């Protein structure tokens, strides 16, 4: 029956001949695991297409929903974690395999006549792979992808004369935004893979024309092997192991949730994906106006070298031991690439030479406690004697740079209570009538960073400071909102509670904005005179009524407080919770990060997978066992074959 159908089909289209063309090939030297790299790359490319298309069932390329839609896929869709994980790790595998494949071709001298076109198509495919990697990273519209796109397009912008044109064309305007995401999406999901498919076809046609290059040793070349099924079975073994590796990585090392993209957030230090680390590290050697050498010059030279390689190295000798000069060149290149990547990986984020990074403290904005201290600074007449940021009296010392004098908080509090303790001649009045909390706040304010008198606030923090000042300028409306806990407003969580934030980034923000009241790591211990409890609530562990094992519910519970603030019950609480969301003191993205951190303090994973299907670990165990079982059966079969022979 099948033979009949097969014949019927072949009478109409030459399927059998096409298969012969694809599979019947003699391999000089016999099948080899060295020759599996190209097939493995092709497999991962197909896997990327399949998982990429599958992600489109859920992902939407809009700035307001890209991150949430991906979160939905990863946490709420059965096996969404697997589909996204395979795509994420597949992208890395693709780069590694392309690199290894090229290296193999280089060592074997397979780029030489008559295979130059195969090599050139390969170079184009390498560039397309890099393009896929770059455009794909931006699509989640998370912190890492956003900043990678920002830095990457800025690198394109350093090309002389046409740089800005390229940059604006890539990002669809002068600023990153929705059009950037749309363009990256269409490049990643349609244009580049479309061109890649054509190029792969060309690469393979060119490859088939002259076949596998085989060993350089003439004696070994006399042994012949078949592509099908000998080489194919080796390819399949490598591909299966690769697939298992990708599943393992997806299950046990899922892509991080780096938090939704936040253009206003200056506390995130962007660092590129591992496959761009070499460039990131190389750029550090070219400061200032020389930067263009690193961004454009060197990559261009490297690509040019790749292109001219088959025309430079034209001898027919393929034995690498007899091509010492070219091998040495290749070796130096690989070592350089690996060294730059490793040092880049280990280096602390220090992104652009033209804009030296501010120390973290400078960027750090005032804590809530310090902001209250600022009020006190005004109310208690400190400015009558002291200058702060260019205004105030000259009787006492200028306090603008108090933070840089290396004084401890205790020292400052002692000074406020009794200045004669430090200097018996001091004429500063005692402020011992202030409560401990108020003294604390005042000290926090004095020890925080202040803009110099000329208002030359550090540029990156300007936007955040403005919003801080804005929230502070309207204490009345703040209080109204905060005290109105029973209003409907209070019951509505902000959009932050729907976003999966990043724990590490949240920890950083927590230190800046929350720690002064809620204690180090949210462990509490800060007194709040005038409140019923007498203490600021600890967040580790959080109050029972706020806790939930369901990360979404937990986030919503605490979100209301972070968004709208709250006043603790009690006669006159000295400290109250700020309305960080309503006052725009923190962005929703930042709040999402802080929430992820607080959940983490309480042992709840914000990015918990909520699906009814097998968990990643279960799935891994199942497929690993099945594979092991199949391998054992095949090994036994093979053994029995050999016995019969």
């Amino acid at each position, binding site marked *: 029956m099948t033979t009949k159908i097969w014949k019927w089909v072949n009478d109409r289209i030459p399927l059998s001949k096409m298969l012969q063309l694809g599979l*019947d090939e003699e391999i000089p030297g016999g099948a080899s695991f060295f020759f599996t790299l190209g097939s493995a790359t092709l497999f991962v490319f197909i896997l990327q297409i399949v998982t990429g298309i599958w992600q489109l069932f859920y992902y939407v390329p809009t700035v307001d929903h890209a991150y949430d839609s991906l979160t939905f896929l990863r946490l709420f*869709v059965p096996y969404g974690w697997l589909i996204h994980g395979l795509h994420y790790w597949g992208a890395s595998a693709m780069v590694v395999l392309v690199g290894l494949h090229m290296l193999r071709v280089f060592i074997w001298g397979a780029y030489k006549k008559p295979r130059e076109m195969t090599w050139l198509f390969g170079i184009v495919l390498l560039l397309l792979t890099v393009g896929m990697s770059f455009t794909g990273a931006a699509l989640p519209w998370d912190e890492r992808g956003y900043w990678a796109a920002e830095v990457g397009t800025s690198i394109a912008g350093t090309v002389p004369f046409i740089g800005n044109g390229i940059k604006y064309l890539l990002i669809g305007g002068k600023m990153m935004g929705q059009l950037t995401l749309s363009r990256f999406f269409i490049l990643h999901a349609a244009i580049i893979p479309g061109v890649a498919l054509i190029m792969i076809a060309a690469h393979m046609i060119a490859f088939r024309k002259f076949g596998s290059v085989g060993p350089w040793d003439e004696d070994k070349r006399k042994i012949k092997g078949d592509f099908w099924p000998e080489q*194919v079975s080796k390819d399949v*073994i490598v591909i299966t192991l690769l697939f298992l590796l990708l599943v393992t990585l997806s299950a046990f090392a899922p892509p991080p949730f780096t938090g939704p993209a936040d253009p206003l957030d200056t506390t995130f230090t962007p660092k590129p994906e591992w496959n761009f680390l070499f460039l990131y590290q190389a750029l550090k050697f070219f400061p200032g106006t020389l930067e263009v050498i690193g961004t454009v010059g060197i990559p261009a030279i490297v690509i040019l070298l790749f292109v001219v390689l088959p025309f430079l190295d034209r001898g027919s000798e393929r034995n690498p031991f007899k091509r010492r000069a070219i091998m040495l060149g290749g070796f130096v290149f690989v070592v350089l690439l690996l060294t730059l990547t490793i040092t880049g990986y280990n280096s602390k984020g220090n992104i652009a030479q033209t804009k030296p990074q501010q120390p973290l403290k400078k960027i750090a904005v005032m804590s809530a406690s310090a902001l209250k201290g600022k009020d006190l600074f005004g109310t208690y007449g400190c400015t009558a004697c002291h200058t702060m940021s260019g205004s105030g009296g000259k009787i006492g010392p200028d306090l603008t740079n108090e933070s840089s004098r290396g004084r401890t908080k205790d020292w400052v509090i002692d000074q406020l209570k009794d200045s004669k303790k430090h200097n018996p001649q001091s004429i500063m009045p005692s402020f011992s009538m202030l409560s401990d909390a108020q003294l604390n706040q005042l000290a926090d304010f004095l020890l925080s960073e202040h803009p110099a008198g000329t208002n030359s606030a550090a540029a990156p923090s300007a936007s955040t400071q403005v919003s801080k000042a804005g929230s502070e300028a309207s204490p009345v409306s703040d209080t109204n909102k905060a005290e109105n806990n029973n209003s409907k407003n209070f019951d509505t969580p902000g959009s932050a509670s729907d976003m999966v934030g990043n724990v590490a980034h949240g920890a950083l923000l927590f230190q800046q904005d929350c720690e002064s009241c809620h204690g180090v790591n949210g462990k509490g211990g800060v007194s709040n005179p005038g409140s019923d409890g007498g203490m600021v609530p600890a967040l580790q562990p959080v109050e029972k009524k706020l806790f939930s094992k369901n990360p979404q519910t937990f986030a919503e519970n605490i979100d209301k407080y972070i968004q709208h603030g709250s006043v603790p019950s009690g006669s006159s609480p000295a400290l109250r919770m700020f309305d960080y969301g309503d006052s725009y003191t923190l962005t929703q993205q930042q709040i999402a990060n802080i929430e992820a951190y607080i959940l983490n303090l309480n042992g709840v994973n914000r990015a918990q997978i909520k699906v*009814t299907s097998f968990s990643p670990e279960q*799935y891994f165990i199942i497929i690993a066992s099945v594979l092991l079982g199949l391998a054992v059966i095949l090994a036994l079969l093979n053994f029995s074959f050999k016995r019969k*022979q």
Partner: protein
Amino acid sequence: MYTENPIPETGKKLSRRNFFKLLSGVFAGFIVVTLGIPMFESIVGTIKKKKQRIFSKLTSVSSIPNDQPVNLPFVMTEEDAFIKNIQPENVWAIKNPEGEATVFSPICTHLGCRYQWREDQKLFVCPCHHSVFDKNGNVISGPAPRPLDTLPTKTKNNYLYVLWERFKPGISNKEII
């Protein structure tokens, strides 16, 4: 499957070749199945997922007057996959002397207009076709085919919550849309 082979083979070689073919087929099948099942599950899994019923907070039960309908505006959250829609809605609520609150959908059961409360007549009147209901939602006059639709409620910590639902207008049965 491709079987034609122009090269004649010895029996020994055939078994070796067949083993390679078997191995390739088994492992390729393994990948197709272990990836195919999750891919299938990922698109059918969301069909099985029940839609979450989200109750919206109205007001404290004690703030609703006895025996007097009040209109309660509230903010409703609707979840649609990864999109959350927040939109304002309102309902009518009345509390009986025992303190139990009933919540009515503000939509007339006749053709879906929004009715009003006439304080002077103590009646709900729909402006579209003059359907008239009493304060307990019973039809007094007009074309309305059924009493006002009540909505599911729950009380937690003295707060009244409502589940927003819509019903088919114009028929005598209360049928959820």
